[in-house]
């Protein structure tokens, strides 16, 4: 970028003095060993630049911060509206998480990629099969969540996780209510399970957070992890037993685990996006909003 002003330049000596002044934050007293000529030059530059201080400015008004906050609120409201699936003909009947429009092609592609990757890695066929079936089940749950959201003004079913309130300092947190999803026919009960752990009880774990934390997570606008393979150490945590926080999922031969995201996609395997091969707590990178999985 050039302009009619770019050809203007200072003498070599003035430019050198200006550079020195920049280095000391325009504080001439910080300059040492100046010759009388240099001192006169520095004073002249500072005198000239001092006129910049006369540029008329005014302090901020009391309303500027309020106006800026209102602008941010407006932005957040618009963003939330964009993320919400619009079903204007239906009223909201239940409180829950908003879910984004899925890209089923992407989901299918990701599952295929998962299959290909694991095939290339040469993992055992049995573990591979379990992993694929697990991912497929999650994809069906994801599709069910999307369909449920379409019927419920963009919200997905939630439940109060009273059984793990002790891990939240007595506050009752919330998580996806997959049983309601299956009970209302949006997926099959068989889909709520990974074949890797024998199919007993609830087969997956669900991200569980206090209402306040959910709001914080959602306000960040990132893809949210809703569901994952079973947390292998939750029972130990609830009974105050010792546990290894780095315990990976044994569900499919320690191949890794699968995760369902709120855009309906599945992240599979030991994908680095969710912090390696850990299943029960996923580091939210620097900011530390962890994904906590309960069932």
């Amino acid at each position, binding site marked *: 970028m050039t302009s009619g002003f770019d050809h*203007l*330049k200072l003498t070599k000596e003035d430019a050198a003095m200006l550079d020195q002044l920049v*280095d000391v*934050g325009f504080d001439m007293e910080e300059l040492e060993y100046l010759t009388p000529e240099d001192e006169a030059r520095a004073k002249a530059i500072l005198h000239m630049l001092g006129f910049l201080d006369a540029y008329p400015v005014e302090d901020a008004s009391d309303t500027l911060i309020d106006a800026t906050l209102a602008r941010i609120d407006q932005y957040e409201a618009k963003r939330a509206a964009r993320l919400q699936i619009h079903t204007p003909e239906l009223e909201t009947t239940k409180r829950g998480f908003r879910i984004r429009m899925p890209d089923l092609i992407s989901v299918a592609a990701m599952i295929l990629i998962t299959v290909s990757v694991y095939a290339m890695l040469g993992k055992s066929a049995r573990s591979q099969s379990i992993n694929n079936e697990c991912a497929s089940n999650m994809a069906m749950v994801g599709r069910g969540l999307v369909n449920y959201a379409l019927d419920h003004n963009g919200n997905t079913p939630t439940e109060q996780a009273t059984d793990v309130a002790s891990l939240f300092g007595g506050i009752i947190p919330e998580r996806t209510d997959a049983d309601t999803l299956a009970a209302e026919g949006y997926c099959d009960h068989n889909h709520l399970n990974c074949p890797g752990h024998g199919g007993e009880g609830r087969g997956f774990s669900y991200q569980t957070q206090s209402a306040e934390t959910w709001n914080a997570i959602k306000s960040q606008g990132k893809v949210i992890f809703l569901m994952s393979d079973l947390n292998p150490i939750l029972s130990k945590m609830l009974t105050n037993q010792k546990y290894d926080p780095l315990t990976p999922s044994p569900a499919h031969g320690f191949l890794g685990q699968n995760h369902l995201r709120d855009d309906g996609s599945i992240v599979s395997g030991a994908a680095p996006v969710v912090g390696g091969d850990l299943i029960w707590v996923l580091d939210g990178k620097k900011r530390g909003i962890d994904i906590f999985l309960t069932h």
Partner: protein
Amino acid sequence: MPVENEIRTDEELLTAHIDGDSSAFPELMDRYKNDLLHFLIRFVGTRAAAEDVFQDTFLQIHISAETFDPSRRFKPWLFTIAANKGRDWHRKHSKRTVLSLSQDIGGNGEGTRFVDLMEADQEMPDAQLLDSEQNDSIRNAVDQLPSHLREILLLSYFQQMSYVQIADSLQIPLGTVKSRLHSAVAAFSQAWQTANCEEDS
């Protein structure tokens, strides 16, 4: 967890904002409202435009907060974003008059000499003693600088950012920062000189 009543750093406030502390962002804005608004008024020329860009700047800070590296200083980041938003504003409102300099002071390879300027016929008044007409001359002299020179002049002089910080912030080579500041100072001197001559005549 921060100790109650302890003054939080800018970086801590931003982190607190990301973590959902609703009081942190207003506090951060309050801390910089005058400094940033003054910078923007000088950069875009009017208070109304500066307030718009102020809002754009803090909205961008809010949107990009998670990308901020808390090991770095917040203030240079803030002014970098403000400068970018100010430049965007200039691009959208590019109907600007360009000062026509009556003499090519750089054309002969000698460049502008501050000593010459100081020894010119008209006396250089003290900045504190300028009347409103002269303040307008200062404003005109600054406003006629192209934005890419003006932003470097303001970041350097008012925010005391080093060449390295400016180069890092604006993603331009260090040598370009230097040459632009040299040009900006020379242009401002010349514009001020011209304005004074016109006023006297």
